[in-house]
């Protein structure tokens, strides 16, 4: 009987060995993926176990943390608070005990909750010196005054809309507003009576205005006439025309190739063989449509791509990719070149167009996190400005600047004029809906220029207002005043 007994001993040993191997698999090999699984509640518990680090604008925090009552079953010690939450929501996103986090709160969660490896040394040191672990701060590039101007402009306007302001020379995002918005404080906790109700009310199902949509980054609109800036730079870059003031080859009416339909202008405009400057000033569809058709789909697409179309941007919050389609025939390319047909752009994308022109043709990568700090305010990471592409040469950029400045000086964009400052801009009124039945979108993109030719700010504004009178909607009327107040705010804050 002893031989089988020894084998049974071996068998029992193998059972234990199998368990040991399985345990090593679970607790050594798979430990990180299990530990950091967002569904693992320990992740949430850790996130709210210490006061969360802050998101900082112009040196002062726009977020905070408050201790919650841990009586009863609440296992989460701290709760997020926001100052002027609705205004900053497109930047901060939310960090909710019950509903997780998004945008900066999610992307920089490691720093804010103090778990990032870059904070490891400081946390370990803190453990030895008896200091409690704490989260680091995220210092943004945003400008308090510009954001306030954008937000109050949108709020006064009352319709849905968005504003993006960039520093053209660096790509820093100065303002990022979306309206209507939501206050992330309202559902930061995990109470079923208050937080869950507030969250539910904000969902698109219950609020058709979809306040939680970040329109500045995630909504694409037909850019309308503002896209003519891209078309104009394609014309200059491809040497179709070489100056702002030579007459273009533009018949009126211009019949779109392969069709019998003329491309109409808004009213009786002096567009026949107009110069590029004049065509941009009065916003001639026929001239820019023909430029698009003359250049063809491939060249237009190449130029649009250089401006950032068809690519997602990571600011680090992801923005949707703007659209300029491929494989279109000439009449479709003509319509696309005046910002209609399939063309669609995020407000960020159009701000990038304005900033590239203002920055003498160089497009800088847009970003909103300037640096990451430990809780002891040591910098642990700093974002350096980065050139994304050069959509047009410096010479052509200056030609385009002078054209856009004419638009503001004596064209459709006169309401953006700022005394003592050179401003360039372009209006847009984009049609949409079946047979253009819905209210158009009002666009305005612009930049301000210093005396030395450098530009401190470029802005894009879009307003979708289904309550306003249709005739009232034009980029110049609705959007340009907001762009103007944002530019003024940036210029004043630099004085």
């Amino acid at each position: 009987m002893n031989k089988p007994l020894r084998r049974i001993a071996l068998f029992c040993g193998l059972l234990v060995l199998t368990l040991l191997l399985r345990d090593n698999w679970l607790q050594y090999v798979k430990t990180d993926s299990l530990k950091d699984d967002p569904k693992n509640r320990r992740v949430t518990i850790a996130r709210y176990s210490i006061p969360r680090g802050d998101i900082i604008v112009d040196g002062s925090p726009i977020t905070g943390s408050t201790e919650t009552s841990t009586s009863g079953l609440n296992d989460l010690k701290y709760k997020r608070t926001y100052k002027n939450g609705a205004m900053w929501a497109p930047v901060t996103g939310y960090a909710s005990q019950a509903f997780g986090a998004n945008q900066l709160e999610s992307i920089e969660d490691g720093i804010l909750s103090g778990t990032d490896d870059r904070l490891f040394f400081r946390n370990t040191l803190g453990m030895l010196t008896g200091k409690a672990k704490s989260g680091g701060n995220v210092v943004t590039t945003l400008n308090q005054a510009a954001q306030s101007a954008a937000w109050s402009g949108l709020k006064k306007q009352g319709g849905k809309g968005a504003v993006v302001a960039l520093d053209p020379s660096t790509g820093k995002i100065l303002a990022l507003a979306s309206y209507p918005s939501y206050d992330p404080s309202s559902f930061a906790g995990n109470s079923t009576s208050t937080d869950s109700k507030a969250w539910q009310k904000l969902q698109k199902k219950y609020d058709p205005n979809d306040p939680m949509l970040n329109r500045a980054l995630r909504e694409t609109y037909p850019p309308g006439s503002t896209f003519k800036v891209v078309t104009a730079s394609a014309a200059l870059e491809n040497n179709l025309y070489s100056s702002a003031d030579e007459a273009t080859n533009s018949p009126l009416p211009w019949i779109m190739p392969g069709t019998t339909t003329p491309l109409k202008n808004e009213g009786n405009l002096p567009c026949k063989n107009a110069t590029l400057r004049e065509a941009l000033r009065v916003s001639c569809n026929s001239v820019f449509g023909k430029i698009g058709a003359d250049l063809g789909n491939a060249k237009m697409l190449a130029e649009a791509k250089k401006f950032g179309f068809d690519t997602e941007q990571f600011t680090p919050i992801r923005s949707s990719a703007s659209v300029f389609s491929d494989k279109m025939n000439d009449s479709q390319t003509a319509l696309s070149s005046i910002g209609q047909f399939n063309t669609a752009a995020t407000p960020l994308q159009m701000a990038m167009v304005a900033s590239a022109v203002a920055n003498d043709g160089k497009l800088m990568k847009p970003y909103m996190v300037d640096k990451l700090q430990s809780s002891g305010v040591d910098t642990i990471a700093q974002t350096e400005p980065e050139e994304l592409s050069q959509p047009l040469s410096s010479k052509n950029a200056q030609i385009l600047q002078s054209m856009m400045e004419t638009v503001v000086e004596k064209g459709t964009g006169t309401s953006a004029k700022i005394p003592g400052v050179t401003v360039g801009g372009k209006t847009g009124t984009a049609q949409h809906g079946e047979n253009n039945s819905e209210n158009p979108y009002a666009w305005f993109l612009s930049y301000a220029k210093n005396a030395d030719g450098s530009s401190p700010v470029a802005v894009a504004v879009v307003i979708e207002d289904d309550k306003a009178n249709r005739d009232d909607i034009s980029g110049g009327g609705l959007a340009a005043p907001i762009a103007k107040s944002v530019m003024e705010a940036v210029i004043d804050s630099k004085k």
Partner: protein
Amino acid sequence: MSSSTNTPSHHTSTIGAIGAPSRRNTELALLVFAVVIPVFAYANVGLAIDDKVPTGLLSYGLGLGLLAGVAHLGVRKFAPYADPLLLPLATLLNGLGLVVIWRLDQSKLLQSINQAGNAAPRQLLYTALGIAFFVVVLIFLKDHRVLQRYTYISMFAALVLLLLPLVPGLGANIYGAKIWIKIPGLGSLQPGEFAKIALAVFFAGYLMVKRDALALASRRFIGLYLPRGRDLGPILVVWFISILILVFETDLGTSLLFFGMFIIMLYVATERTSWIVFGLLMSAAGAVGVATFEPHVQQRVQAWLDPMKEYKLSQAGAAGHSEQSMQALWAFGSGGTLGSGLGQGHSDLIRFAANSDFILATFGEELGLAGIMAILLIYGLIVERGVRTALAARDPFGKLLAVGLSGAFALQVFVVSGGVMGLIPLTGMTMPFMAYGGSSVLANWALIGILIRISDTARRPAPAPAPSPDAEMTQVVRPS
């Protein structure tokens, strides 16, 4: 029994050579550690949770020390040559289990769903009863061979115990498995734990008598000894009963445990590998067969294959689904190599049965890979000491009983911890000694008691040969 009575020199430590040391002092020294380690763990939990040494530390330490002392004195008096490791190892596991049960008692979450709160004092009471039972076994079971007389009574008792949960009004369906009975005023009982011991006694008694017939009468076929048709009877009956348990009590673990124990004992009794092959084929066929029509078993298998899906279903409120498997995996994963430290984990998220079936997950999270490996090795040591006792035993009944009990213990540890760690589908059994529950503690202390009795008999020095009566007493009767 050809090889058990020879005593080659390298076996002198286990096979009772004359004058072998009793090792009682070794046991006492180890017991000190087995009491001190849980006391430190207890202090550790209190410091982690309340920042102070728990007020119950002294009474807990004295209580555990007293119980260990009583058990040790019982062994010293009634089984002086017993294996010195079994008692300290079981005491250590029992003590650590108590600490973690107390730690889970502090969880507000578990208190709110009535899963903890005052489980530790009750478990301490069960432990006291268990150790009393252990000493009673040592006092009244003077020789394990006495159990041989109760072979068929044990079978009857085991069947009754196994069938009790199916009696209407008495049985309770807890989380799908019907392996409990409710006794009004006393709480619930898992009769399967006791049936384990009764069945081991029955199998040992039965196989000792029948083993020659089962081993010798067979035909050879492709290297395997095929048993005669009529000798297949017993294995078929046990297989059938296991299937019945699986079908009616819907518990894969209990079923696997009993069938596995029988196969191990059958193999040891007959020394025929063919029985193992048969056993494996039959258990596979049985498990797959039942899984095709038993929804509870199917669901357990689904939860094992995709615990995340099961978790999502349970979060979505689907009836009959449980988040436990995934929560247990998260608990293990979050523990990592060294664990979060006692009292600092969140294994109470497992909620239901966190301190019984799933107690290993708390050890995993708070003591980490290192702690679990140590605990598994302690279980392994208990099993191997049990098998060693079987090797040392001089009688076939003792050998079979010891290997049956140790094998069942090993299978139970494997099935429970494998289930909690997601290695095999989850079953409704509990970790011996560590999990909360009176039946389990009582039955396992009795199991250790029987193993200690067998090892005492095995290691006891052989009585000095009696002087031959022939030498002097034989008288020549002369005709007068």
